[in-house]
């Protein structure tokens, strides 16, 4: 048989191993040392066991070796040979982290250096030794003799184990020159013969330079189902060795819990993306047909029009169904927080209860991947700045254990994620003081909501001192920017003494955009609705030309730079004066800009096509879409336009 390249199984191995580690981590966190649930510890063991087995099989010895220690420790725990203490759980959690690192290195093709986990390995080994485990003595292998005399007397019930003496004898023959004598003494008369029992015994003289281990291996599966003696074929008297009796252990009762994920299959995301893209094309084609058919005489073309309207319905249902395949429960990101909170609470000396609500809420995989960092930041903030120490809480008459809630829900075409804590809340006075200290525009007359918004201003941080928990140089401004880049928005509500709640609103998918279509000359452009503040038709007196700063428009008491989209993209055709145009006020990164367009066409959902993949990157354009009439419309990248325009106007 041609040798098989095991690397073809690596991808599956890594995927399942990382999943296994997630299970181990979640279960370890759920493990209560006071009251150990045997199914939980079994699940943890099983995950470690699978990783070890796979790592050994697929050639990652260093990983297998490390996991082996972990597995042995877990095995003793589940067998009740070892008490499970809180430090044990911490050690196991660190081992899970280390293993994740080793696996990631191996996955990315790096050489796994067992030295990196050496200190932890030593700790595990020490922990194991502390449990008083007796190391197993290595089996001794006898020096090969000139041959062996083997007495093989199967018990009557041998067949019931699925073993066949004939195959065993044949295997012996392959080892060397065998003389086999059958002993029929125990054979009953034909009338009493039970064909399902074994009544025969054999004596075999096996000649050749064969190790005892090789012979014993042939009988490995049956040594308890027979009387067996293997003696050296030398002048020295034979020493019979009989198979030892082993007491049977009753297997644990089968568990009846069904596994939730058994009805799913793994599909490469690229395949799903291709499917979504094709359906997008189908939707466009369908829209074009619909538009063409609108010119047809309804009486003469009744059947065709009926068919088209059915196509319209089916296309929409198909699009929704395909989109839903990219949807994952938000649990995929929520599930990491028990660990984050556990570790942080320990580090900060705070007591925290984490509440997860609506983990089953689904959203697009690509969105899930991108909200992980902002959410982590918010949760860290809640623990670090939001929640008080147990003493402070007690002094305020609160439960010493604080609560952080992560909640996901659907609202319309959006997903709303809340990060809430019942901590000290924001202090209006402190925020205002901090803002003026940092040179951020503010005043005492601002509403609470406006004051809370200060937190999102670049360079703002409320911590009196930067801790290694929250102060990583990433502020709330970055969180807001990241969420906005996903087409979402962030809001904050707080009450002093009662807690803070940050609400993130995100589109369900990045493949579709809620857009506002505007006309400029003969072209249509799409503005992401999330960036649009308002639109207005300005009076001539609202427009000012400022020397060196271009044109600005006064909206209420604010001057906003004005950017004629026609000039910006050099759209052919005569320019209209601003007061005969429409101004769409957009906002990004805290800067406002008034885009001058000819007309508002309407609001619609558009399927985003990558310009980069099909053409090249264009500054100020985030993508393109195909309109119902087959025309291509460009989607504006508001954040970039605002940045470029502010720079251009300032220059």
């Amino acid at each position, binding site marked *: 048989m041609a*040798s098989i390249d095991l690397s073809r199984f690596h991808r*599956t191995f890594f995927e399942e191993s990382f999943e296994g580690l997630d299970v181990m981590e979640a279960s370890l966190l759920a493990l209560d040392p006071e009251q150990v649930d045997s199914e939980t510890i079994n699940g943890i063991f099983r995950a470690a066991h699978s990783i070890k087995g796979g790592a050994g099989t697929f050639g990652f010895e260093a990983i297998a070796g490390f996991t082996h220690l972990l597995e042995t420790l877990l095995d003793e725990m589940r067998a009740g040979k070892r008490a499970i203490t809180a430090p044990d759980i911490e050690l196991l959690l660190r081992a899970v982290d280390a293993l994740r690192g080793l696996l990631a290195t191996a996955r990315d093709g790096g050489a796994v250096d067992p030295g990196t986990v050496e200190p932890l390995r030593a700790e595990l080994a020490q922990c194991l030794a502390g449990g008083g485990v007796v190391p197993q003595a290595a089996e001794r292998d006898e020096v090969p003799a000139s041959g062996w005399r083997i007495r093989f007397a199967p018990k009557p019930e041998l067949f019931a184990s699925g073993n066949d003496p004939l195959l065993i004898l044949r295997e012996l023959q392959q080892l060397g020159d065998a003389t086999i004598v059958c002993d029929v003494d125990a054979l009953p008369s034909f009338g009493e013969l039970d064909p399902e029992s074994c009544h025969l015994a054999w004596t075999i003289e096996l000649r050749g330079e064969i190790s005892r281990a090789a012979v014993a291996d042939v009988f490995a599966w049956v040594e308890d189902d027979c009387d067996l003696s293997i003696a050296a074929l030398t002048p020295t008297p034979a020493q019979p060795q009989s198979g030892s009796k082993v007491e049977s252990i009753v297997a644990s009762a089968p568990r009846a819990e069904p*596994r939730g994920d058994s009805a799913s299959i793994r599909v490469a995301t690229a395949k799903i993306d291709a499917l979504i893209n094709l359906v997008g094309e189908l939707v466009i084609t369908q829209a074009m047909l619909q538009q063409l058919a609108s010119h047809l005489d309804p009486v003469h073309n009744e059947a065709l029009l009926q068919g088209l309207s059915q196509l319209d319905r089916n296309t929409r249902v198909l699009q929704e169904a395909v989109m839903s395949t990219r949807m994952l429960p938000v649990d995929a990101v929520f599930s990491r927080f028990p660990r984050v909170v556990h570790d942080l609470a320990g580090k900060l000396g705070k007591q925290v209860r984490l509440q997860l609500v609506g983990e089953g809420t689904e959203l697009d995989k690509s969105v899930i991947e991108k909200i992980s960092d902002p959410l982590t930041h918010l949760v860290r903030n809640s623990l670090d700045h939001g929640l008080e120490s147990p003493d402070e809480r007690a002094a305020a008459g609160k439960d010493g254990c604080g609560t952080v809630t992560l909640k996901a829900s659907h609202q319309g075409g959006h997903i709303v994620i809340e990060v809430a804590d019942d901590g000290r809340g924001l202090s209006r006075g402190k925020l205002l003081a901090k803002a003026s200290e940092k040179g951020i525009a503010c005043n005492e007359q601002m509403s609470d909501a406006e004051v809370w918004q200060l937190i999102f201003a670049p360079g703002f941080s409320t911590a009196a001192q930067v801790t290694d928990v929250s102060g990583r140089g990433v502020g709330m401004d970055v969180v807001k920017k990241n969420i906005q880049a996903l087409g979402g928005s962030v809001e904050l509500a707080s009450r002093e003494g009662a807690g803070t709640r940050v609400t993130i609103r995100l589109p369900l998918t990045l493949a579709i955009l809620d857009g506002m279509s505007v006309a400029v000359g003969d072209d249509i452009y799409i503005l992401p609705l999330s960036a649009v503040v308002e639109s207005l038709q300005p009076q001539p007196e609202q427009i000012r030309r400022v020397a060196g700063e271009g044109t600005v428009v006064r909206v209420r008491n604010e001057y906003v730079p004005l950017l004629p989209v026609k000039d910006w993209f050099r759209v052919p055709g005569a320019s209209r004066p601003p007061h005969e145009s429409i101004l769409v006020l957009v906002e990004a990164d805290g800067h406002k800009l008034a885009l001058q367009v000819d007309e508002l066409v309407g609001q619609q959902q558009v399927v985003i096509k990558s310009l980069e993949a099909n053409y090249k990157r264009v500054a100020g354009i985030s993508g393109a879409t195909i309109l119902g009439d087959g025309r291509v419309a460009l989607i504006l990248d508001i954040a970039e336009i605002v940045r470029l325009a502010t720079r251009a106007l300032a220059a």
Partner: protein
Amino acid sequence: MGERVLAVDDSASMRQMVAFTLREAGFDVAEAEDGVAALALARNEAFRIVLCDVNMPNLDGIGLVKALRQMPDYRFTPLLMLTTESSPEKKQEGKAAGATGWLVKPFNPEQLITTMRRVLG
């Protein structure tokens, strides 16, 4: 050979490896991800050989072997356990449940085929 065999393992990579190796060697392989799924398949057809992992959710290898041995079609069928060296007591437990033999993980494809020859002759 073309023999119809059943490979049971909750680890997808191990299952793939076993199934792939056996198919390369000419076996006709059915796969199951745990003991419950394996029993469901075994009720519908008599496999020539069953290879199963020991540690599995829902119904583990020991439970599977016990259940199979109770079925008339499987009284003498070779039932092989894929086990790890760390649990010698599992081998005995498996034998007591009615397993024919075992293959110790980690094993390579060649060792798997050798083991198959042991039960097929």
